[in-house]
């Protein structure tokens, strides 16, 4: 009996070592945000590992990687960047240019320049910080372009058979096209309803569906302070806003406070980070449906 158990253990050890080696041997794709990782997983198949390296709860835009993180990323077969200024860390490390893909390069001329913030600090005097809106993939037509860039890179790097990638891209493109049509339909009555977002994430979404969304700078998922609630009330009154979009679910008391100001709350996770059980498309569909419902109720 002991002999048999030894055999079983030996076989198990060999199998586990084999699978660990296989995992290490798999090509690796690194994505700078969760949506790009989701797109890559859809397109590349199981033979390649897709890694989103940012820990849960950390803003992927402003993540500061460790040396070990960068070593891992430098050794990846493909590094998927969003472009549009997303992920500040990419300008603070050496990355292999031949394996970098800026997935929004095809539509750089469609980047949205955000309004400038004038302030002063140090001896620099008053100056303006103007930026580029980064959350391009929240416009499904741009998400399609980013998926196409990923597919082309996967094929160019020979990470999967071209015909397989093309078939997966066709299916994914079709789903995103349907998503866009669904959103166009669901939000067709929302153009005249002013909305407020707790963070400036939704510029491309708003532009795609001609929505009016004013942004705050609140911490994701946190309970706003009394001052923030007061400012929200003033802004809601000024804009005649009736919908509040949160990028992460806040405490129930926050939603109640917004409700008291006449604002219906909607959670719309932009999928830059972990934190949802849905796929990008399911999360997007849910958010669009919830916004549509909020708009309908606010009009009653």
């Amino acid at each position, binding site marked *: 009996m002991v002999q048999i158990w030894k055999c079983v253990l030996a076989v198990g050890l060999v199998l586990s070592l084999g699978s660990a080696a296989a995992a290490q041997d798999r090509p690796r794709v690194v994505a700078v945000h969760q949506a790009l990782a989701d797109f890559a997983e859809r397109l590349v198949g199981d033979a390649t590992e897709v890694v989103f390296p940012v820990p849960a709860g950390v803003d992927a835009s402003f993540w500061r990687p460790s040396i070990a993180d*960068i070593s891992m990323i430098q050794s990846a077969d493909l590094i998927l960047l969003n472009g549009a200024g997303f992920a500040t860390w990419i300008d603070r490390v*050496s990355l292999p240019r031949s394996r970098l893909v800026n997935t929004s390069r095809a539509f750089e001329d469609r980047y949205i320049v955000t309004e400038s913030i004038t302030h002063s*600090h140090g001896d*620099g005097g008053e100056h303006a910080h103007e930026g580029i809106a980064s959350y391009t993939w929240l416009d499904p037509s741009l998400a399609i372009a980013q998926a196409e860039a990923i597919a082309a890179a996967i094929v160019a790097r020979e990470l999967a058979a071209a015909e397989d990638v093309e078939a997966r891209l066709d299916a994914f493109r079709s789903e995103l096209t349907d998503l866009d049509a669904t959103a166009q339909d669901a939000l067709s009555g929302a153009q005249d309803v002013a909305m407020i977002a707790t963070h400036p994430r939704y510029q491309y979404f708003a532009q795609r569906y001609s929505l009016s969304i004013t942004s705050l700078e609140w911490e994701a998922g946190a309970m706003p302070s009394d001052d923030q609630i007061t400012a929200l009330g003033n802004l809601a009154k000024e804009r005649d806003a009736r919908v509040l979009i949160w990028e992460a679910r806040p405490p129930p008391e926050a939603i109640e406070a917004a409700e008291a100001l006449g604002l219906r709350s909607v959670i719309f996770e932009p999928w830059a980070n972990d934190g949802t059980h849905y796929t990008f498309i399911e999360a997007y569909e849910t958010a669009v449906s919830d916004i549509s419902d909020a708009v309908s109720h606010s009009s009653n």
Partner: protein
Amino acid sequence: MDGAVIRAMALTAAAALAPVGAGAHQLVVFASVDCEAVTVEAKFSNGKVTQQGDVRVLDGANNLLTTLPLDSDGTAVVPLDSVDHAGGLVVEVDTGSHDNYWIVTPEDIARNCGS
């Protein structure tokens, strides 16, 4: 093309790519490495030279290895034999009003040292 030219191009490109407008002056930090030293360069994204600031060099566990001042041309040189660089280095530059960092991995050092 020598290392100085490559460094200048990289720093200029990083400054140009920084997602800020004409009025902004983010601090851009770049570090290059050879077998002897890490050369740190810092400038503002509007092209202005960073004339003073502190350079902090840390290891992978965020232990401070050394601190040195920026020269008036916005550069600093960290001899590799002055720090334990086996696990890579994090170079932070702090001007008092702006700060930024650059990460040097063990692979960067090995690659640029010809091994």
